[in-house]
């Protein structure tokens, strides 16, 4: 059984999904970052594969990608990071990538390499279900969950099409726009969770802009099964580039505070 399915099968409390760009600030440190996130209580780890043109990302994650690329983080290196994390834990690992990197490796090869690196699910930023036949086939052959995004703009008809093709969890984009920290959980986020909740039993993970314990609690209260925190974690990494131990301490402290908020509400 896929580790993602197993996690959601075994837990009734919401999952806390922590995101970092693989290779930020360099591959070695990023393994340490990931291990720290996991020890501090992240339930599912999401790694971003750095891409030269991260159109879905705001400035924070763009800068992280640039640091990773400058440190030589190729897709090979990302898989090596995932393997190094896998050595010490069974946490589900999700790999967020841009399609051109999948395409150039060869779709089947990419999914096979991802499986061999211990990756459990792959959301692709620019992969609407309409274009996804090839990646779903490769994902299924490799036992990897094809994870799809649902946006506030997604119509009911397309929600159904996505639900029919997704597995692992649905990635709900909480707001219109790119990744980045935001002040509060928008009304549209809550209504999106409610709308999708009544259509599927798939776990719902809410991402984009979630950064504070209150955000996590609001999403879980509306029926989400997980929150995805990205830019807030990346900001902490960025603030402590010159002191790795302080980086790890700050990450742990932050994860503890967020973990308490997701754990507080039953799913």
């Amino acid at each position, binding site marked *: 059984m896929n580790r993602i399915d197993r996690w959601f099968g075994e837990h009734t409390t919401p999952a806390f999904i922590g995101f970092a760009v693989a290779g930020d600030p360099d591959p070695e440190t990023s393994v340490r970052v990931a291990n720290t996130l996991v020890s501090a209580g992240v339930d599912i780890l999401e790694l971003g594969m750095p891409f*030269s043109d991260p159109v879905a990302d*705001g400035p924070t994650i763009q800068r992280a990608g640039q640091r990773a690329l400058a440190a030589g983080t190729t897709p090979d290196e990302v898989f090596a990071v995932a393997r190094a994390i896998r050595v010490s834990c069974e946490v589900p690992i999700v790999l967020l990538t841009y399609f*051109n990197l999948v*395409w150039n490796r060869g779709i089947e090869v990419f999914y096979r390499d991802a499986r061999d690196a211990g990756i459990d699910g792959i959301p692709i930023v620019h992969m*609407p279900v309409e*274009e996804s036949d090839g990646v779903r086939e490769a994902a299924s052959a490799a036992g990897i969950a094809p994870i799809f995004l649902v946006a506030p*703009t997604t119509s009911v008809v397309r929600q159904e099409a996505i639900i029919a093709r997704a597995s692992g969890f649905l990635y709900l*984009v909480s707001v*219109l726009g*790119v990744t980045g920290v935001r002040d509060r959980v928008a009304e549209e986020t809550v209504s999106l969770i409610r709308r999708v909740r009544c259509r599927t039993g798939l776990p719902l993970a809410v991402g984009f802009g979630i950064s504070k314990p209150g955000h996590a609690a609001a999403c879980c209260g509306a029926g989400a099964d997980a929150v995805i925190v990205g830019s807030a974690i990346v900001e902490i990494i960025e603030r402590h580039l010159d002191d790795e131990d302080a980086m790890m301490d700050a990450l742990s402290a932050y994860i503890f505070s967020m973990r308490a908020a997701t754990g507080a509400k039953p799913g």
Partner: protein
Amino acid sequence: MQKSTRFGPFGGRYVPETLMEALLDLEKAFGRADIDVAFQRTLSTILTEYAGRPTPLTCCANTSRDLGCRVYLKREDLLHGGAHKLNNTLGQALLARYMGKSRLIAETGAGQHGVATAIAGAVLGLPVDVYMGATDIARQGLNVDRMKLLGARVIPVHSGSRTLKDAVNEALRDWVASVGDTHYVLGSVVGPHPYPLMVRTFQSVIGEETREQCLQKEGRLPDVILACVGGGSNAMGMFHRFIDDPVRLIGVEAGGEGLDTGRHGASLCAGTEGVLHGALSYLLQDAAGQIADTHSIAAGLDYPGVGPELSHLKQSGRIEVAAVTDREALDAFGYLSRNEGIIPALESSHAIAHALRIADHLGPDDIMVINLSGRGDKDVGEAAQRGGVPG
């Protein structure tokens, strides 16, 4: 459905989920407008009364004598705004209004598409924000001021290589946040479906007119047609009507400092297949799929991708492709200015430079048409800096 979003294997709709519904709406609205008599009448009126269509097909006596064949220029430089770009922006701005959108955004490289969007926004009463790479802002100052004068806001882009590709990235980031009320006026035959089809349709007036004008003047079709290729909108606008005719079609790309230097923008000549900005096409990229930095003296050709339809036509062998270096383009810029009294855009100068090269193989009765996609006023400063203006 899936099939019609592509040209052969190329194209598609690789976009963030947030934009999918907007693209489906756009496809529907474009389909309706395409057969809506009132919409087409409005577009046709504004193209003639306001933009100055049809543009002339000029027989160049001096160049014909010099090259030993019959040379014609399709004069998109004479279109209002100074380039072919307005054909597309007027079409898209009308469509945006038709869809009830209240704001336009655009990317621009040379500034011509930004100017053309600013013009369309001004005349049709829609506010315009234009994203432009910081490098391009520095080298296309005239067009930056024109955009501002026309009432548009110019937003500098400091990410990546600070050129056209990064301006597209930033416009897309804006659009995912503003998609409810904003239409993204993409400036070339690139991007996700329906843009390549839609932009080609709006630009096809170039080839329609050229075909008619050539038949009228010469009693037959041209033997060879050349157009420069950045994203490919002036080329596809020119080529589309001739695809089924026995006419050589040549797309001329930015050879920059030479294809072997890696500093160029020639995606058809030297690229590999990949997905950027919503479509599968030829791209300049490394083996892993990271997009390469490009270079061209012509900001409008300084782009690592190219339209999916051109990618298909190249792969199928229907079009020929060539690359021209910065130096050759600069020489052609001077050549046309001196010989015909026409200062071409540096982008268009690439097509002229290749025409000069192939003329040897043409006879006195052969007819060559060059798409003069824009005028070169914007480039005079840059050319002077690079020794392209006599002392």
